[in-house]
């Protein structure tokens, strides 16, 4: 009987081949605002690069409140008596220290200590978690769960997500009637009633600004959107596309999987694999906690000084973005590559994230240069510009962590 039901559902799902890029649960609203019609493929969804003007969308993040649809992000529900122990075993950080109602930015590795992905871990209750990431990991999670009393379920389509980021984001949520949202400190989460159900709001985000992320069951997504837009009208809430968000995340010094590093399950060339210490995630590693995936390899690499790369922030002279430029030592020896770069309106500097071959960027930080090929009217202007290693984030905004959060 059950298998027959399964077959029916399976047959019903056949028609997906007619829609190669799905809409998210928010799509009707986003489509209505998409003046540029500038789409890209985010994990099989039709997602906007921009909606009306990527420059102005960026300033909406930094001056008002910006709404960004994060539904295509991969989400797993991890639940059970052993959920904490399981997650402590597979992720880098100490999950026993993650209280219920808190969020961890974390990462996880294969047995060789190479990073499979980074992501956010939400502790919704003592026994219930949500893991969000760029890539997909179900086989790995299920295989790792053997011997743990835990259920792992992929819920990407079932749960829609919105990021509301910017100085007025708190005021918008408060005005929308989410009572108690002022109590959320950075990395806190709580449930709030919405449209006959509940949603989860966390004070998290990808912009380095004051901001929140909201998770809602797909069928209540549109009413949530409308609630926020109505409440935010007087506080300048605007929907935005990825390009604006990408600028904000770079100013915040945050990395993107498969843009700033290659995830282990996708790296065809084995020299592209990276340990956490090689992509700036070493801070997550907790050698004191019990065994976790990749621990032995990671600690051995540290002890034997086998770490070959380092990910750094760079400040580059001038104002020409150095996207994908080669990094040189003494203008001649190739030592790395810029993975993301921009002129930062907030820092008023030319910033970049780069991966360098140690010791460059690690103990040797002098005399670094980037070679920028700037195409101008069908001619490359070749520029050799000095680069300085800089601590990330490139900008620190007090409003991000202020308690209680301000209205703007």
């Amino acid at each position, binding site marked *: 009987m059950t298998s027959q039901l399964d077959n029916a559902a399976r047959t019903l799902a056949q028609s997906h081949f007619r829609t190669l890029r799905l809409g998210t649960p928010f799509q009707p609203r986003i489509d209505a605002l998409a003046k540029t019609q500038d789409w890209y493929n985010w994990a099989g969804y039709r997602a906007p690069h921009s909606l009306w003007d990527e420059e102005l969308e960026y300033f909406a993040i930094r001056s008002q409140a910006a709404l960004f649809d994060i539904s295509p992000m991969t989400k797993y529900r991890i639940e059970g008596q052993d959920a904490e122990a399981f997650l402590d075993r597979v992720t880098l950080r100490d999950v026993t220290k993650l209280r219920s109602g808190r969020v961890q930015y974390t990462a996880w590795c294969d047995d060789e200590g190479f990073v499979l992905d980074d992501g956010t871990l939400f502790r919704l209750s003592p026994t219930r978690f949500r893991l969000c990431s760029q890539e997909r990991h179900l*086989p790995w999670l299920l295989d790792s769960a053997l011997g743990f009393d835990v259920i792992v379920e*992929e819920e990407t389509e079932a749960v829609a997500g919105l990021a509301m980021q910017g100085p007025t984001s708190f005021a918008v949520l408060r005005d929308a009637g989410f009572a108690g949202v002022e109590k959320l400190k950075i990395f806190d989460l709580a449930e709030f009633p919405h449209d006959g159900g509940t949603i989860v709001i966390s004070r998290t985000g990808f912009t380095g600004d004051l901001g929140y992320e909201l998770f809602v069951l797909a069928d209540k997504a549109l009413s949530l959107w409308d609630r926020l837009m109505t409440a935010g009208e007087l506080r300048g809430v605007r929907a935005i596309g990825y390009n604006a968000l990408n600028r904000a995340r770079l100013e915040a010094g945050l990395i993107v999987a498969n843009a700033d590093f290659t995830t282990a*399950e996708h790296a065809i060339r084995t020299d592209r694999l990276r340990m956490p210490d090689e992509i700036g995630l070493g801070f997550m590693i907790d050698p004191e906690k019990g065994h976790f995936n990749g621990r032995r390899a990671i600690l051995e690499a540290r002890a034997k000084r086998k770490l070959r790369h380092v990910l750094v922030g760079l400040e580059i002279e001038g104002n020409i973005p150095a996207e994908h430029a080669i990094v040189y030592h003494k203008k001649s020896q190739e030592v790395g590559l810029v993975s993301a770069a921009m002129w930062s309106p907030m820092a008023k500097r030319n910033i970049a994230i780069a991966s360098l071959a140690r010791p460059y960027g690690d103990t040797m930080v002098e005399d670094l240069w980037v070679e920028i090929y700037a195409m101008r009217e069908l001619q490359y202007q070749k520029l050799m510009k000095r680069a300085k290693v800089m601590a990330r984030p490139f900008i620190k905004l007090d409003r991000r962590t202020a308690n209680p959060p301000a209205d703007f």
Partner: protein
Amino acid sequence: MKAWDAIVIGGGHNGLVNACYLQRAGLDVLVVEKNDWVGGAATSRELTPGFLYSNCSYVCSLFRPEIMRDLELPRFGLQVISYEGGAVFTRDGDYLANYRDHDAHRREFARFSKRDAEAYDRYSRDVTRQCRFIQPLLMRTAPDPTSLKPRDLGELLYLGKKFADLSSEEMALTLRFWTMSISEFLDEYFETDVIKANFALSGIIGTALGPMSPGTAYVLLHHYMGEVDGSVGAWGYARGGMGAITKALAASFKASGGTIRTGAEVDHVLVHGGKAKGVVLAGGEEVYGKLVVSNADVKRTFLKLVEEKELPDIFLRRVKNFKIRGSSGKVNIALDSLPEFPALPKDSPVYRGDMHFTDSIERMERAYDDWKAGRWSADPFLDMVIPTTLDPTMAPPGKHFMSCFVQYAPPRIAGREWTDADRDGFAESVIAQIAEYSPGFRDRIVHMEVRTPREIEAEVGLTEGNIFQGELTFDQLLFNRPVPGYAQYRSPLSGLYMCGSSTHPGGGVMGAPGRNAAAEILRDLAKSTSHMSPAHDVI
């Protein structure tokens, strides 16, 4: 009497590639082909008016783009077109499709298993890694590990370095991959029967092994290491059928001054004083050549065309033991309309891809059990395509050519020869399977060509009907192909070379054996190979 600079026995695609390169190096080359047409297993013939078949091979991926370019095949009419994935039909009325779009592919797999849907990336990464390891070896002569010649040492070092560049774990994985079964390999990634069957088919095509036999994982790689215009692993249709490839090769050869004689079967190679001097045709005519290159498989060449006494006995013994068991047949069908498959939505791209009906590894293995018992499979495994959904040149508008590659079909039926009645029974097993999924299928059939290993051997000359001119198992690859000590296209007889799929890197419409053999011959003649592009970089 005229003596040609080189005589190539056989106008299969490798013989033609070889002849083209030799002719372009300034040699005066003659190709002698026993059939009235060229192409060998890459041929397209019109057996019923208006319909062109791909009589043997039917899809293209392995054919090296370097060769297409060097021999100007586009100028002589060659076009290869990519097609959409395809599907495995399941017995419960559903199907599992392979879509080109990465996310559609994942969603399709998720209909059966969310877990397997997300396992595909790692699977694909691992197969791609193996592929990248083997690809650069295709267009190089394999080293002779027993030789101390600087070149062999250099090639050995190259191979050794490729291995040394692997971590010890990767090396272990590679060796394991080359020797394990496709079924075991897939078990490491997937849990769903139909999904495993979907990938396993590439591990058994053309081989007399079942999905549970060791060595079949490598066969999968052999079907994955080709490309269509840089898209590695993709397959396409040669416009005008696979014969378009050999037609273009023949035209290119003639345009550079080469001569082809069809309907000219070689009875044996002329040998004087341990040296090949030419060939004797079936009618007794002697044709002289300074050197002879055989495109026929290694068994045909050395057991039929050369007298035993001319060959060292260890070599002979190894040739006799060379594994070349036939396992496949082919049914080519002219259809007066496009068949319908009720399981498939009418607008499904699957119609333009390859279709299969074997939805579990176990069914594949059972089909193989029949082969072992000397029977054709009662429930055969089909690789079925309808190229006319993309190629307007092979059938009149609205009508279609359907190609069914069939496994398993043994070289002999329970120890005796195939009979016509056997052949009809074999065809019926195929038609019955298709009709089960496509009502009214029989009524659409206009004409049919049925080929068991008997027909394939008789026409193409492939011993036992083995499509690769010899099994692609690890013991018959690289410097052991076809036999140890003779992996460099030379033979024990001075002046006699090999250039068919029996030689490295093996079967399929790839052209690499023919090309590599030409490079060795030109080296022996101290002639330039500057007209031969090196293998494209794998970066």
